[in-house]
Structure formats: structure tokens, C-alpha cells
């Protein structure tokens, strides 16, 4: 285990070498985990590995099994079969309080009868750490989440964003090896959520030597913004695991393509491709150099910085094109409706989808 005792001051905790990490195994390893509630298969023989120090996001719609997977890692749910390993040791049967993980809950789950300091210091208190060190470390954690000076307040006296920070501080003060976050930003409004995403990412960077982040969300923007790697969930299974770039640019199937961003499906020669809307160039009818398709603009949505065009192709398919309003005014954008246009995109922006897999899933 990485030493991080409170007594050493100047010496930074040594970063474990790659070899050491490899010997220890991944931060989280799920092996064929299955969890059934009554007739519902919440998680179906799921295997995945989370590398130590990374920001790993489990992304999927509600009911896709991502939260159940998180609860299995935390120890709140016992899998029906399969194993859970944390840094190489099997914790499948360990209760939550014996696992080196901490959770930030969706509803924060702050103790209403304790003030902020007692909330944050709770984990240290139950481990029998002395009062002075508890106060010290709790204050440090609150500074870490940029929320100093509220130690004496009750959770009910805090705003949603502040509660979220307290919940985060309460988890990281224990220096867990793995931090689990269950849609922690879901209850915040859009502006605050976007700001917190960036902050959470920077906190994770500061802590990545010690703490691995596993984040659960249905919000694709959050996933793309913060993650080192994303696992896309659907119906209790993993559809794809990869970096945000891989997930976005090379989705393996229609589900991933549709869930992360807007996708355009193109059938050609019995194969299925997808092209992202911002990768398509919209050309006038005359400027035909090497256009891939021709069609008519059916809908125009002016979104401020960009405009979204819905183009009906001659082949009958519909493609969405997003274009930056570089030298396009709102009124001229709106005039595009009904015009005949040509569409062009680069071949490397096409991504072939696995049709067979899709058909097997949706009979």
C-alpha cells in the first residue's frame, strides 16, 4: 500500500512504479459478475478492469446496470456469481466497511444530525483516529474540495453544490484506494454541474497518484469531459470500453453511437456506417467536388454557436449535420430550409458498426 501517514510532512508519497502496479493488479477487477433481482437481470456476467489512477466512467441509461455494478464494488450488493477484486485482493465477500473504497452518494447521504466537520471526520472517528488529527484532516479535505469555513454548519444549511462538496470531502478524507461516485452531480443545475465537472476532474488529477475514480452517470457530456476511459452499459452488459475519443469516434454498434452523441446511420452495400454530425460538410448544389450524397434541407435549428441541419437524402435516409456559425447569421441559416445541398465527409470519419451484434440484441 502507498504510504500516506500523517506524520511525514516534506516527503511526498512515492509513486508506485509501473511494475509495482502491475504486480498489484488493477484497481478494480470484476470477473463474470452477475446480479439478479427477481426476474430482472441487473448485471449479466460482467467483466471489466479499472486501471489504478484513472478516471473511469460507467455510462448508460437508467436500468442498464451501472449503479448495481457500483454497489457491487462498494459491497452493498452481493453478486449472485462472479468475483470482485480490489488491487489484486478478492473482496467479493467483504462487508463495505472492510473495503478500501469510499462512495459519494447520489443523494449525498450526509448525516443530518452532525455538522459538516463531524460529517467529514466520520470515517476517521470510527477508525479511532484522535480528535486533533481528525479536525486537521477534515479541514484539509474541505480545502481540497474548495469549501473551507463551513465546518460548524449543518447539512441542511448548505446549498446543493456545497453538500456535494462535503460528500466528496467526507469520502476522500479517508484516502480510499478507489473512490466511487454515483451520479454525484445529477441534482445540480446545468451551470453548476458543468463547473463541478471541471473541478472534479482537477481534484482527480491532484489525487490520481493515490485514488482511482469510478464514476457512474447517464450524462454523456460528463463522461466525455472527465473520463480517461468510458464503459458504455446497456441491459446489464458492457457494449464498449474505451477512451472518450474511441467511444465517440469509433462506436462499435448502434447503441453506443446513439447513446453517446447524435449519430447518423448510413446503409451501404449491406453494411452500416455512422458519421458524426460535425464531421459532415454542407455544400451548395453547385460546389460538387467529391460529394458523398445529395439531399434537401428539411429542418434548421439555430443553436447560437452552431446550427443543426436535418438533411433528407435522395436515398431516403436522414442525416443530421452540425455546422459552426463561423460566417453564418441566424437569418441566413434559417433560409437554408428547403434548399438542395450536397454532403461530403472524409472516409476516416466513417465508422463501421457491428450489425450482427445489434440484431442479436434486438430480435
Amino acid at each position: 500500500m502507498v504510504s500516506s501517514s500523517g506524520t511525514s510532512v516534506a516527503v511526498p508519497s512515492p509513486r508506485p512504479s509501473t511494475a509495482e502496479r502491475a504486480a498489484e493488479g488493477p484497481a478494480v477487477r470484476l470477473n463474470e459478475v452477475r446480479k439478479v433481482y427477481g426476474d430482472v437481470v441487473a448485471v449479466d456476467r460482467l467483466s471489466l478492469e479499472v486501471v489504478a489512477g484513472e478516471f473511469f466512467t460507467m455510462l448508460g441509461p437508467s436500468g442498464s446496470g451501472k449503479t448495481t455494478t457500483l454497489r457491487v464494488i462498494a459491497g452493498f450488493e452481493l453478486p449472485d456469481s462472479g468475483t470482485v477484486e480490489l488491487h489484486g485482493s478478492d473482496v467479493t465477500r467483504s462487508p463495505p466497511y472492510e473495503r478500501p473504497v469510499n462512495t459519494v452518494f447520489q443523494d449525498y447521504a450526509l448525516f443530518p444530525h452532525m455538522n459538516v466537520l463531524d460529517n467529514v471526520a466520520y470515517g476517521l472517528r470510527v477508525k479511532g483516529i484522535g480528535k486533533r488529527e481528525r479536525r486537521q484532516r477534515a479541514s484539509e479535505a474541505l480545502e481540497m474540495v474548495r469549501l473551507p469555513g463551513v465546518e460548524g454548519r449543518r447539512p441542511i444549511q448548505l446549498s446543493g453544490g456545497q453538500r456535494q462538496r462535503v460528500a466528496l470531502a467526507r469520502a476522500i478524507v479517508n484516502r480510499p484506494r478507489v473512490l466511487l461516485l454515483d451520479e454525484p452531480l445529477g441534482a445540480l443545475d446545468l451551470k453548476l454541474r458543468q463547473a463541478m465537472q471541471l473541478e472534479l476532474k482537477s481534484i482527480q488529477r491532484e489525487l490520481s497518484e493515490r485514488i482511482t475514480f469510478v464514476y457512474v452517470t447517464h450524462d454523456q457530456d460528463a463522461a466525455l469531459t472527465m473520463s480517461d476511459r468510458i464503459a458504455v452499459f446497456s441491459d446489464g452488459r458492457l457494449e464498449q470500453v474505451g477512451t472518450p475519443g474511441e467511444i465517440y469516434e469509433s462506436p462499435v454498434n448502434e447503441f453506443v453511437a446513439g447513446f453517446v452523441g447524435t449519430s447518423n446511420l448510413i446503409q451501404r452495400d449491406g453494411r452500416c456506417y455512422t458519421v458524426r454530425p460535425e464531421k459532415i460538410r454542407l455544400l451548395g448544389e453547385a460546389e460538387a467536388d467529391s460529394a458523398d450524397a445529395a439531399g434537401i434541407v428539411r429542418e434548421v435549428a439555430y443553436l447560437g454557436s452552431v446550427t443543426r441541419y436535418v438533411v433528407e437524402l435522395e436515398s431516403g435516409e436522414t442525416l443530421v449535420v452540425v455546422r459552426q456559425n463561423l460566417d453564418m447569421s441566424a437569418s441566413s441559416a434559417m433560409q437554408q430550409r428547403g434548399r438542395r445541398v450536397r454532403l461530403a465527409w472524409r472516409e476516416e470519419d466513417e465508422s463501421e458498426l457491428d450489425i450482427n451484434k445489434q440484431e442479436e440484441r434486438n430480435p
Partner: protein
Amino acid sequence: MAFAAWAVLIMLFLFFPIVIIMLYAFNPSNVQSWPLSGLSTRWFSSTWHNTEVRQALWLSVRAGLLATAIAMILGTMAAFAVDRFRFFGREAVSLVLVLPIALPGIITGMALNSFISFNSLTFSLLTIVIGHATFCIVTVYNNVLARLRRTQSSLMEASMDLGADGWQTFRFVTLPMIATALVAGGLLAFALSFDEIVVTTFTAGAQNTLPIWVFAHIRNGQQLPQVNVVVLFVILVSLIPVALAQRLTRDTGMLRSGARTPAAGAAPAIGAGSAP
């Protein structure tokens, strides 16, 4: 309007006799007649010095406290089991716990009496306590269960997640969350026990609790002035816990120990901060 008038009449019908009985305690004469010839507290001291009354009071207090203690422990445990776990017969547990209140006391009393006699047990404080505990458990059970259902289950999970084992979680999180409900249930249980007469009649043997002493002396018509004083006392001792219990379970019901007034600028959320 008509409805309000009826409501007032019914309330008068229910509570006016109680007020009259309470006034009789201050009757200077030893003959009960209306109107009272004056107001006096002369019977209070004579009642206080009556050893029979003292023994009965002491027995009632001990029985009430013990029955309440048992009810608080068993009622809380039952509430936890029903709230936390799904098990065979879970619905039946609720029914069985509520039944002693619904059943006529005379049936509970007879059943306990025959059980005690059949096993050749001696009637004692213990038999009274067992009798009372049967119907006291439900008040604690109901109060605690209602509170548990309103408590976020994620709080207990958060506690375990932060390294607290089951006992620590109970001590630091669960118990503070249910404390007022538990105390309210206990107060109601004590109030129920303190004025109970039917079940007690069958489980007390030759001992007198305060209500039994009152009952006996109303029947033989002796010492009526002292009976009136005791009745006033029993009414107060039953009423005060009920009123306290209602206060405790009002609002959020959370204990406010150590809660300071909210700092300036921090707006307390709805439902909080309304209690004194």
C-alpha cells in the same frame, strides 16, 4: 356551523366529566356534592401519607418503567427487522404486535392469568410487567418503524461505507435518527401502562397498582376524597407523556441537541428550524 357546534358538544361530553373529577380533588368536604363548598388541598397531604397509596404508586411506577424498557428494546428490534429485511411471516409480525391493543384486555388478561396459574408461577411485579409489555411494545414499534421508513437508507450505507461496522452505525447514525421516535414511543408506553387496569387485574394477584387501588376504593366507597386526588394524579401522569410524545414527533422529529441558530445568510430549508 352546525358541524362545529356538534364537534364542540361532543368534546364537552367527552372532557367535561374529566374536568369535574379533577375539581373533586380540591373538594374540602368528604362528601361528594355539587357545587363544591370551596377549594382546598387538604386531601393532598393525607393521600400522600397513606401507605397503601404510596405502595400502589411505587408498584405502578416500577411496572411502568420496566414494561417501557422492555417495550423499547423489543419494539425497536422488531421495527428494524420489519424495515430492513424481507423474510417469511414479515406481515404477520405487524399483526401479532398490534393484536394485544385490538384484543379486549380481558382476553389478554385471562390468557395470561391461566398461563401463570398453569405454570404455578407466583404473581409478582414480573407478571404485571409481562402483561403490560404485551401492549406497550406496539407503541414503540409503530413510532420507530414510521421513523425508519422516513429515514434515507443511504445514511446507513454511507456509514458502513465510511468504515463503521454494524454497531458503530447503530450508535452514531441510526440511534440519533430514531431517538425522538423511540422516546415518544416509550412515553406513550409508560402512559398506557400507568393507567392500565384490566390486564393488571389478572396478572397482579393480591398486589395493588394505583388504578386498581382506585377501582377498589370507588367500589367500596371508602376514602373517596383520596381516590379523587389519586385520580387527578393518574390523569396528569397519563396526559403529560402523551403531550410530550406528540411534541417530539412533530416537525422533522430530529433531535436538536446542540443545534445553534442558523448562521446569518444561511437559509434553513423548509420544515427545519421551526421548533424552539
